[in-house]
């Protein structure tokens, strides 16, 4: 069924056709013509500033400086571009007959990056990206001066991924800041960035980051190829790409992970993954994604390993409770009462005595109520949020039971579900669906229904791949060497190899093996080949 849908989608995609190519006209040697053309292209936007300049003497010296107000660093333009331009030519060693443009670029302009561009299209693009354009009369080339600078948000701790210990910085909306934060974490010449522009109209900067020597080259190629296929007119967030490049776009499970934390991205690159930065969003995608990744938190590595292992087990437990507890309760109380201890059974039956609906219906209803409360809590302003929790707790919880609409056990199970779901935020979306499906199956077929649902989920999960890596690895296919960071969180000195399925070209990350001791004799026994 999914194959069929996918085929349809692909066809629909093909039918859309390709966007018309931008015209690649050359610049005219006449300054006026160029300015008119740019004005026509951009319209009468008030933020387009055109500053006419008179450089040197004679007709040759007429020029114009163009930039978009708000996208440039005002100080840089004034101090390092306009001021030298007005003074430099007169004072300098410029002689008639030299190429003025070349002279300016080499001797006068005090900005970091200066490019020559003969074509009209790229000039406009550069202008819109915050570069300053210098046009000279009589030259059919423009100078692009990198003067980008705009208002930025300060570096904050990401709200969605809080941790207790460890670095508290998070990515911002600025692409360059983000890549710089990554460079600060990994000072390795192998850290490569590749930039491309995606989105026909937004022309958003997208950067692929990987660690050469660690990453599998084929993976980088695959990421590149898939990003090239992206044919959207806008890319406003990482998720736009995420849904475009993931292996199973129709699956409930995420085959691309995302994070706002530089330390997480650094760790993932060092495992041989590839990161995709998108300009304008603090969210960074990493591929390939694994199921078990959702259960790992940076805190796991910032706390002692025995504690981290313990917490990780509880994360697994919480996920399964969150997904299965309503279904299990429905199945046990409806079909398999003999499996419930007698005293508990009596309590449950007494509580659900006078309620009008079957247990499965109650459960689905309360699940829906909970989702509504949650959504309302997110959207509302913070002071009103309090009201929501009171209404949720008192009116719906307490009153529904007192009024005899639902049984008290249903409320307890729903509450358990509500809390446990948030332990693994990455799988929130799949969790909601799975819970609903399992609850309905349990209402229809009891524990057998749950088993059917689980088998279906299992078959689906093992058939998923994320950029060539089986989604459920290292559980299936089993690679026992990777259990050290999945089933437990082994001590850092024992995490000697990268995940085999991802980082296999350079599996070893440090000398493998021994617990560190005062004795230095063991050092150098196992050579690092990275």
């Amino acid at each position, binding site marked *: 069924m999914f194959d069929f849908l996918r085929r349809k989608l692909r066809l629909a995609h093909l039918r859309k056709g390709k966007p018309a190519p931008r015209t690649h006209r050359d610049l005219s040697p006449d300054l006026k013509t160029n300015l008119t053309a740019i004005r026509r292209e951009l319209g009468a936007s008030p933020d387009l500033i055109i500053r006419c300049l008179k450089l040197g003497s004679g007709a040759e010296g007429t020029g114009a400086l163009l930039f978009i107000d708000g996208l440039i660093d005002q100080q840089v333009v004034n101090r390092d571009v306009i001021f030298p331009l007005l003074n430099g030519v007169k004072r300098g060693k410029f002689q008639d007959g030299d190429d003025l443009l070349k002279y300016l670029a080499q001797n006068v302009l005090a900005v970091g990056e200066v490019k020559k561009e003969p074509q009209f299209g790229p000039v406009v693009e550069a202008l819109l990206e915050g570069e300053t354009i210098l046009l000279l009369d009589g030259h059919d080339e423009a100078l692009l001066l990198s003067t980008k600078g705009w208002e930025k948000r300060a570096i904050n701790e990401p709200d969605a991924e809080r941790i207790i210990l460890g670095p508290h910085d998070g990515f911002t909306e600025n692409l360059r800041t983000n890549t710089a934060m990554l460079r600060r974490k990994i000072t390795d010449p192998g850290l490569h960035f590749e930039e491309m522009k995606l989105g026909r109209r937004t022309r958003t900067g997208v950067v692929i980051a990987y660690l050469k020597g660690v990453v599998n080259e084929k993976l980088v190629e695959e990421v590149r190829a898939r990003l090239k296929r992206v044919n959207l007119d806008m890319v406003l967030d990482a998720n736009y790409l995420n849904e475009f490049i993931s292996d199973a776009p129709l699956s409930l499970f995420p085959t691309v992970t995302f994070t706002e934390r530089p330390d997480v991205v650094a760790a993932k690159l060092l495992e041989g993954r590839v990161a995709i930065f998108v300009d304008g969003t603090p969210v960074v995608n990493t591929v390939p994604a694994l199921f078990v990744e959702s259960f790992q938190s940076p805190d796991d590595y910032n706390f002692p390993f025995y504690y981290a292992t313990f917490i990780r087990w509880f994360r697994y437990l919480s996920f399964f409770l969150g997904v299965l507890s309503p279904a299990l309760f429905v199945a046990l109380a409806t*079909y*398999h009462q*003999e*499996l419930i*201890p007698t005293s508990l059974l009596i309590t449950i039956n007494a509580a659900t005595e006078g309620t009008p609906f079957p247990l499965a219906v109650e459960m689905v209803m309360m699940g829906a109520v909970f989702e509504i409360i949650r959504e309302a809590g997110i959207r509302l302003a913070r002071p009103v949020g309090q009201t929501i929790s009171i209404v949720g707790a008192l009116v719906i919880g307490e009153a529904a039971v007192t009024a005899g609409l639902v049984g008290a056990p249903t409320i307890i199970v729903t509450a358990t579900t509500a809390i446990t779901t948030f332990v693994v935020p990455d799988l929130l979306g799949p969790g909601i669906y799975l819970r609903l499906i399992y609850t309905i199956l349990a209402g229809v*077929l*009891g*524990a*057998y*229904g749950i*088993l*059917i649902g689980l*088998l*279906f989920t*299992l*078959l689906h999960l*093992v*058939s998923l791949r994320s950029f060539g890596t*089986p989604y*459920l690895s290292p*559980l*299936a*296919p*089993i690679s026992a060497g990777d259990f050290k960071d999945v089933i437990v969180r082994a001590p850092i000195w024992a995490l000697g190899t990268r995940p085999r399925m991802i980082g296999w070209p350079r599996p070893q990350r440090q000398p493998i093996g021994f617990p560190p001791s005062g004795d230095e004799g063991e050092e150098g026994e196992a050579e690092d080949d990275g």
Partner: protein
Amino acid sequence: MDQGKISAGQLTLLIMSFTIGSWVVLPTGIQAWQNLWLIMFMGLGTGLLFAYLSLFLFRRFPGKTLFEIHERVYGPVLGKFISLCFLWFFLQTGGGTLAIFKTLLRSTVFTATPDLAILVPLILILVYGCRRGIEVIARSNQLLIMSTVGLVLVSILLVVNIFNPENLLPFFNLPFSEVIWTSISLAVFPFGQNVLFMMILPRVNRWQKVNGAVLKGMIGAGLVLSTIQFLAVGVLGKSGQILVFPTYEFYRMINIAQFLTRLELIPLLNFLTMGFIKTILCLYALAVGTAQVFNLRTYRPLALPFGLFLLLVAERIFPSISEHMRYLEEVQTFFGLIFSLLLPMMTLGIALLRGLPRRRMAP
């Protein structure tokens, strides 16, 4: 055709699941009840002999499924005919497994549920999994067999307080002929049905490792089955002989401090997953085999019709548990012997006589 590849380790686990499959809930050779856990090893030994016969055949034609071997050895017409016979064998194996689990569920948990309500969802998942190919089956099996082995290990601990070693006595109070007969019937079912893997072996990525994988898989399965049987005898004693599903019933007796009681649903569902793997492999072999017999490009469209076919077989050929048990007792051993021993032996003999494969043709 399916292009998926599985590793030798995955093959081992598949063989374990397949062998554990249906026998785990409906043991045969019940007349030797108290010694069944020991005779299991004799059955295993005989079963391994059968398996190595087939493997010998496979190693002469590496990379070829049983059906392709048939066509090479017997020629197209006779070869296809023998292949069709094997299809019937797969159908009956799969249908029988389905029937066992249907009966188990109907007689224990869902006493009032109609057959179709139990079978149809299962068939749909089987078809879904079968269409996904052998890789997906092998990977999902890895998790399922792990949980089964884990459950068996845990149940050793759980039955400690109700396990009575005296229940195991007397040892070998059987006539010798009975021992031989039981071990042969065990060699045929569950071990002999592994001949189905002749359809799957070419999908193993390194065929040189196949022998070891089969050996490990069958021994593993033998150990699991023997352990369960051992626990069942120790817990239930002689009375277990009159139960239809003894390996499942003994979980009923578990009682740890009045807290862990009535755990039978867990093994029930767990064993069901083994049956699931067994049936899905039968379905896969059926679909792939048919595609090969009729030279089809892909087996995928065949999964659904054969799934429904399995449903039909489960409903029609094994309508009730008593008939099924009679089938297992009186027919299964002879029927199975034809396919797991005689036909492969004949194929091998003729291949040797004809000097196949000729060196030049060997890959």
